[in-house]
């Protein structure tokens, strides 16, 4: 199923308690910083998803979802505006969300 998705993908989910958006990282954890996110494409996606879902079973995370990624300097950024908004925070409230802490403009 996942194999059919085009291009690199990363895994977006929410913390169970805060509901805040996080990405599955290369070292098998979760972070709001997409540049740490693990990404894969094609056949490798199923394995990545399975690994991420293991973590969901630890009951820290809900709603794992594959989302398209754009790769720059070996770091992943959301390809679609919806996931960019999720990663950064509301575009109309620059004072809220991860955009406050991370230097998005540099990305």
């Amino acid at each position, binding site marked *: 199923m996942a194999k059919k998705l085009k291009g690199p993908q990363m895994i977006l989910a929410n913390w169970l308690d*805060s509901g805040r958006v996080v990405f599955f990282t290369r070292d098998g954890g979760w972070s709001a910083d997409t540049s740490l996110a693990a990404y894969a494409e094609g056949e490798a996606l199923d394995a990545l998803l399975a690994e991420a879902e293991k973590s969901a079973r630890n009951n820290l995370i809900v709603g794992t979802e594959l989302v398209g990624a754009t790769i720059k300097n070996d770091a992943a950024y959301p390809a679609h505006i919806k996931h960019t908004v999720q990663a950064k925070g*509301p*575009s*109309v409230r620059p004072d809220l969300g991860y955009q406050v802490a991370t230097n998005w403009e540099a990305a």
Partner: protein
Amino acid sequence: MYAYDKFDRALTDTRVAEFRDQVERRMKGELSEEEFRPIRLMNGLYLQLHAYMLRVAVPYGTMSGDQMRRLAHIARKYDKGYGHFTTRQNIQFNWPKLSETPDILAELAEVEMHAIQTSGNCIRNVTSDQFAGATADEIADPRPYAELLRQWSSFHPEFSFLPRKFKFAITGADQDRAAVKWHDIGLIVRKNDKGELGFEVLAGGGMGRTPVIGKTIRKFLPEKDLLSYVEAMLRTYNEQGRRDNKYKARIKILIEAMGADEFARQTEAEWERIKDAHIDVPLEEMARIKAFFTPPPLEVLATNVPAINTLAKQNFLFASWLKNNTNAHKVPGYVNVTISLKPHGGIPGDATAEQMDLVAALADAYSQSEIRVSHEQNLILPHVAKRDLPALWTDLDEAGLGTANVGLLTDMIVCPGLDYCALANARSIPIAQAITKRFDDIKRLQDIGPLKVKMSGCINSCGHHHAGHIGILGVDRKGKELYQILLGGSGAEDASKAGILGPGFDEHGIVDALEKIVAVYLGERRDGEEFLATYRRIGADIFKEAIYDAA
């Protein structure tokens, strides 16, 4: 205002305790997300784009100063200091933590509020006229009936799992400010030839991907038969509405398929069967509920207040606010004040905790501690003495709540769109901000006159774009946000469905296109003719030419 009795209280308290236990079990992993999701939704808790979102019901848009203060407190303590008022007259908090929602619900229950049935395929918060009980053009206050429907529909065992969500709206006035024709069931309070109270009953209205204007199912339903009749309607829908396809599951699709006459016939047949089955409440109970909505004892005051006239002459903004943001009250010497939550360049429908506290304090001081939320996402202080208007306006204006644009182009209905909503295709708030900045001049807005612009970030139409004189719909075209324009809709008593003009514009093009549409109207209008009337007279083509051909 309605006050909970021991049954209401027991119901909400039990629900909070039950949800607290469920949340604890979820946090411990005893409930999976799959098991928990329908439970949290039944308690108004969504997982949205950035975090959880809690939708709190404001029954028929009426609340007290104390309730508003509690909302402010919740925004401050559990959220990020603000809330968003919606087209369902509810409020949404965008950042609550799952583990804290039981505490939020407990704090709400203390002031007789809850989030029950603000999600799910059940009967949602009944919406109503924001001026109910306070307007000069009303046959009767519709809120006692809305309250009766609230009690009847809360945890109704048969109607808790309908094919799809179900929305009622009710008005008691000839002028429809509650968009009743756009609801699953719409009720209009009427009097028959004998002067008895009752309802015109409409059904099958709705927006979304298949916009339909509701049809009259019964011209006059006696007041005492309300519950048995709507029960017959709901049963007909519940049994026959489609469950195989969620896009075809609303009552509007059933009624379109079987025809309004046939739906009415089946409803009447079912009603014949059940109308004497003691579903309707005894007259004493109706009288008990009505007593909570007794109008406040207002002493008649002089209608002409020289201090107001003087200030209006000196201050154009006050004069505009007086003209646009106040309307006639039943009692001479009073008005209803609409507080615009559409500051130019701001976020439509949002209010900070400080603004909520201020509105609560102003309600205590000037409006008998009563506040209303309108489906147009504004707040209303009813029963304000005209002589208090200068002081009230000054306080509002200082807090950024004095925008004099009610009913004008920038008083837009705008859904949260892609900045907050997981279902969105495009952002709507930034477009609203660009539009309200472009049309920032109140003089110009007044010259354009009454104009309802309504915008949704996807086809679900929470922003009522089908009912906008000018509607804007955000779409996603290959990952790009585009905005389509619709013209000629109305959510009022002359309800009509807006038609799409053509291909969408990008975020800059849409503001220019709106400006061109306004220019066509100003060029074409006859004396005193409002936008919608001009559109209905001249049609869409000339507008189309202006926005596409010139490009």
